[in-house]
């Protein structure tokens, strides 16, 4: 979503990156080591808006330190954080069976310091968030940073235009800070192609 709708416009500068090494980033010949980093982009027009694009895998025992390091470099005063993440709808627990027509859908979690009306339903019990969104939320909760995390439950394995569009209402709320670019189809095509190669079992 971030690549297609946000970074698609030319108004973003890459201003830094955070690298992690774990056994899942093997540097293959021809593939640069930049694939194992998370890149930070700053908006040219609105210098106070940063986007962090996380494309690599961060292991469980690295989550805490990654979060501490990244937030250690950010100014805490007036900081507002939004996290976008996704997972399969199979991980969503609900008493009524969810027909697949409701997926993809969004659920949110917010820290105590976060104010303002929610843009989507809150995550119901007994569902929880783990991984990087949880690490960021925990850090922000403990340090009283207003943070909202939007989690998309999708019934499709790879990225696709419908699932990616699910996040649009979220950023419509942030329209002042981030201009939503018109979706760049080439970027989306690149993502979809990358996952297609492994799925020729079901042709």
């Amino acid at each position: 979503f971030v690549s297609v709708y946000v970074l698609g416009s030319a108004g973003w500068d890459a201003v830094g990156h955070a690298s992690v090494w774990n056994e899942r980033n093997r540097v293959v010949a021809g593939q640069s080591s930049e694939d194992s980093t998370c890149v930070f982009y700053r908006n040219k027009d609105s210098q106070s808006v940063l986007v962090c694009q996380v494309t690599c895998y961060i292991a469980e025992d690295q989550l805490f330190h990654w979060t501490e390091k990244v937030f250690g470099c950010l100014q805490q005063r007036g900081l507002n954080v939004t996290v976008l993440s996704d997972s399969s709808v199979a991980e969503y627990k609900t008493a009524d069976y969810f027909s697949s027509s409701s997926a993809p859908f969004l659920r949110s979690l917010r820290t105590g310091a976060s104010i303002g009306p929610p843009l989507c339903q809150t995550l119901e019990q007994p569902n929880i968030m783990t991984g990087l969104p949880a690490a960021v939320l925990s850090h922000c909760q403990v340090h009283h940073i207003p943070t909202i995390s939007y989690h998309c439950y999708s019934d499709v394995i790879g990225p696709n235009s419908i699932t990616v569009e699910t996040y649009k209402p979220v950023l419509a709320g942030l329209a002042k800070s981030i201009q939503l670019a018109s979706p760049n189809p080439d970027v989306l095509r690149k993502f979809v192609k990358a996952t297609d190669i492994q799925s020729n079992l079901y042709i």
Partner: protein
Amino acid sequence: MFISAETSPHSLTGFTLVMPAVAVGNVGQLAVDLIVSTLNMTRVGYIHTDCLIPMAGNNPYATGSKDTEELHTAAEVYMAADMKLAVLQIRTPIIQRKSKTFRQLIVSWIKSSGFSRTVVLSSSHAYQRDDRQLQGTTLRYLMTPPLLKGCEDVLKELGWREMERVSAFPGLTDGSAEPRLYIPGGGITKGLYTASCAEDLPLAVLLLFCSEGDNIPDAFTLVNHLNDWLHLLDKPNNEPNKWKIPTSWTLLFGSGIPPALF
């Protein structure tokens, strides 16, 4: 480390601390959930550490629509001031290789907070019991010497069994091998106990022999035993031993069944 959630932190000196060990069947953690939920305890702080896998979710003890949207993390401290009770809840596994660090963190936090006594709720693999342990109650206790001094009468009255020492090499008749404490599946329980003995901290361990599965009955058993000792539910407005199941316990074994399956 402990980070307070309150603007003017309460002192926990003199409180009783109840905490779970992440152990087989998660019995200690389930028992702690029952305690926090029933006694309506308030959160007073977080244990913010790199030793636990991160996790976040809405209020697991929500009673209505007002308190549902409250973010809770992997390890938090709750308090019931009128009962001088503090409870630590740990919701995620300890990261591999960080057990010793986490244990040391907990021991130093216990020391610095000045708890009058600590009770660790834990469990151990039922299949690893030796012949003596197969019979009778599945509850065992351990107490460090400083706590044992004041509790001898209570223990006699309760009729609890102390966790047996087992031989290091069962079957070998070498008499020189001293029996040792062995808590398989107990996580950091043994480490906490031995560290507390070394540091002269008043600490008790209450554990149940159990197996993985539906451990809700085990949680009730453990928390009822704890109540026999600490009398958490002996207030007149509470029915005897009526524990409140938190909302987070729904769907423990997965979502509802799709009707199209049949």
